[in-house]
């Protein structure tokens, strides 16, 4: 029977390529998701003092995954009090012992990485390929890296015996829920601070799962506290008078509001805000590699990346050739079920974000830029956006100036390296940039001229715990990662 059927099953072709058979990851691997969650305070899961509950949905299906508490001022106060209480013992612990807790956490993350990857993909909408191969390995690596610093702080270059600040209030975004948690919690704990973290209101589940990991690791109660909620909870946390340090990753307007709120206090502040990176391609660049870099730069994580290469600056002489190659490549991107291991572009994180992307791309069209997307079927439910390219973009267009935070690439051209630098630097942001050329001296010259905290040359969107990350200008201040990342949590 099977033999006879074989001939009948013609492989499906699309864009001249064979379609992949579905390769779904099991949602069950995410482990049990409770119907409702409270906060994690003082080492225990506790009920909120308020009655308001928020819902987190799977953006790929629009199904409600769980309810979780909206943290009230009182909840925040309880969490800060727990962190304050834990601070005395935690900061007094020898660094070598703190290190062991962090190493334990890193190991448990590795052990449970499949579970966490699936859960992250379900809650966030990002492809399992990325959570599995990018997010989770980096999350574990951050805890490993900062674990090693805990007993070596005297050698970090901030003078002998640098001291922790106290209680750190940390507010993180929804685009990399676990990675941002790791960026914030690992250095805070290594340096002897205790933490109250507020995850984003659309992606709280992996932070709450991380709380379980803290318990498995035997982390002393109150060292890590997680309070869920929306911006109101975040504002209550950053405003709390007993918080000594505020770390925020998110939008520039919110970062600006926090900086204002903290003016006149002694709270130390680090901000990692928006960006509008230029990805600059010269005529001598290796085209195929550049195309891969451009795709990775803007379509990685649905473009929900503050350092995404959202402005392609291409040298005029190779514009046509590059755009042809780019469109060819974009046509092969698979948009759909995030749990399918073949998926390149998953779901947009929320209806709200989808509306924002739609509004900005509509503005791009109405301002006269030319829009192009490959044809691709989108699932009936969930929040989706086709990978989109705009050509004929001028510097004044909103899509060239504003952060879209979606899979939308604006293409501009230049003739000379000087012009490329001027256009690249022509935003209030200064987070990242890309350069594609075979000429080494030009790379170094460009890297020097670009006002950006991270410059990727002949590559893009690479991260590592040893490598400092953070912006110039209105992309914020302070660095995360590396030795530099310690400074934000030390009294120096």
């Amino acid at each position, binding site marked *: 029977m099977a033999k006879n059927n074989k001939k009948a099953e013609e492989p499906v072709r699309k864009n001249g390529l064979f379609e992949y058979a579905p390769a779904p990851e099991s949602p069950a691997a995410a482990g049990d998701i409770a119907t409702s969650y409270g906060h994690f305070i003082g080492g225990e899961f506790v009920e909120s003092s308020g009655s308001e509950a928020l819902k987190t949905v799977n953006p790929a299906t629009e199904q409600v995954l769980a309810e979780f508490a909206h943290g009230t001022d009182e909840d925040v106060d309880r969490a800060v009090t727990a962190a304050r209480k834990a601070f005395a013992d935690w900061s007094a612990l020898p660094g070598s012992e703190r290190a062991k807790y962090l190493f334990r956490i890193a190991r448990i993350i590795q052990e449970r990485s499949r579970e966490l990857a699936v859960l992250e993909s379900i809650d966030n909408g990002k492809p399992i390929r990325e959570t599995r191969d990018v997010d989770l390995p980096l999350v574990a690596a951050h805890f490993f890296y900062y674990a090693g610093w805990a007993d070596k702080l005297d050698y970090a270059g901030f003078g002998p015996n640098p001291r922790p600040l106290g209680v750190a209030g940390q507010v993180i975004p929804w685009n990399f829920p676990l990675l941002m948690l790791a960026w914030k919690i690992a250095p805070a704990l290594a340096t002897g601070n205790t933490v109250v973290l507020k995850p984003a209101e659309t992606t709280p589940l992996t932070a709450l799962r991380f709380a379980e990991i803290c318990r498995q690791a035997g982390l002393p109660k109150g060292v890590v506290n997680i309070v869920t909620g929306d911006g109101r909870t975040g504002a209550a946390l950053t405003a709390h008078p007993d918080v000594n340090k505020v770390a925020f990753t998110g939008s520039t307007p919110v970062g600006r509001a926090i*900086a204002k709120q903290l003016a*006149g206090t002694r709270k130390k502040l680090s901000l990692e805000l928006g960006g509008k990176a230029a990805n600059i391609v010269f005529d001598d660049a290796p085209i195929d590699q550049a195309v891969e870099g451009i795709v990775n730069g803007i379509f990685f994580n649905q473009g929900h990346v503050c350092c995404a290469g959202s402005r392609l600056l291409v040298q005029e002489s190779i514009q046509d050739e590059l755009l042809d190659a780019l469109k060819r490549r974009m046509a092969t991107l698979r948009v759909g079920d995030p749990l399918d291991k073949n998926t390149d572009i998953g779901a947009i994180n929320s209806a709200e974000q989808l509306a924002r992307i739609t509004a900005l791309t509509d503005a791009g069209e109405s301002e006269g830029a030319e829009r192009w997307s490959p044809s691709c079927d989108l699932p009936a439910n969930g929040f989706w956006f086709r990978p989109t390219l705009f050509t004929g973009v001028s510097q004044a267009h909103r899509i060239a100036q504003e952060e879209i935070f979606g899979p939308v690439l604006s293409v501009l051209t230049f003739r000379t390296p000087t012009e490329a630098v001027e256009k690249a630097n022509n935003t209030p942001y200064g987070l990242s940039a890309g350069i594609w050329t075979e000429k080494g001296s030009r790379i170094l010259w460009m890297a020097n001229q670009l006002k950006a905290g991270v410059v990727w040359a002949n590559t893009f969107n690479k991260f590592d715990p040893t490598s400092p990350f953070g912006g110039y200008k209105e992309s914020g201040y302070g*660095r995360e990662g590396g030795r530099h990342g310690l400074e934000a949590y030390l009294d120096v």
Partner: protein
Amino acid sequence: MSDLMPRLDVFKTYKLYVGGKFPRSESGRVYEVTDSKGQWLANAPLGTRKDARDAVLAARAAVKGWSGTTAYNRGQVLYRVAEMLQGRREQFAAEVATAEGVGGKKAAALVDAAIDRWVWYAGWTDKVAQIAGGANPVAGPYFNLSTPEPSGVIGIVAPQAGYGHSFLGLVSVIAPVIATGNTVVVAAAEKAPLPALSLGEVLATSDLPGGVVNVLSGRTADIAPTLASHQDVNGIDLTGAIALDGPGAAAALEASAADTLKRVTRPAEEPSSLDWTNPPGTDRLLSFLETKTVWHPMGL
């Protein structure tokens, strides 16, 4: 003419130092500067918000050249400032003595310390990248390097309190910021601006390109908010923002700086208890630096 007729001193007309030139204030006005006992010393130009904006323009224009010069060259220029100051040690000692009401010996010691501080920072220009940057051993085939870069134009509200604030304190806030390639607009201590204005004369003859340091005298309450809110200022040092106007003034300036997400150095909790002769450490050297990290693949 009688031999007994005492010789009249030649008074000095103090002027602002902006863009390498010595303009009078755009306001055409001056204010009285007195010694610590209230005795008239001189009329200082009453710098205005417009003067502050002009100074920011000059500072911005100087960023490219100053940040682009070699660290070796910047070090030489800073050392040259120390040389020039050495020659005018007596003048500065007299100005510091009257400004702060300290004795001649103490004032001379404060000036010596200020000269030594220039020398110290001169030696930092070509070393700071080696302590603030480095190679990052990333897990992959990449060459990955972090280097510090200047933030750009920095506004400084000069110290108005603490032992030695009028000159040693002033030098302690300016020198580290320009050592790293930034340019500066400094609002001099409102009540003790004369050493700062005289420093302008020294800087003008020290091979320091015009616009790298701009010195304004006047009401701190006029000049500081302009610097804090200015779109083209990248960072603000509020060291002296507290003394005259109470703690609220520093908070308001910091809130204003938040609009453009400026890097802010806050005043000390007790500025009047500061002793500027203390070793400065590297804090101020690193305050207005950005870390740029460059990745490049390695392979054949």
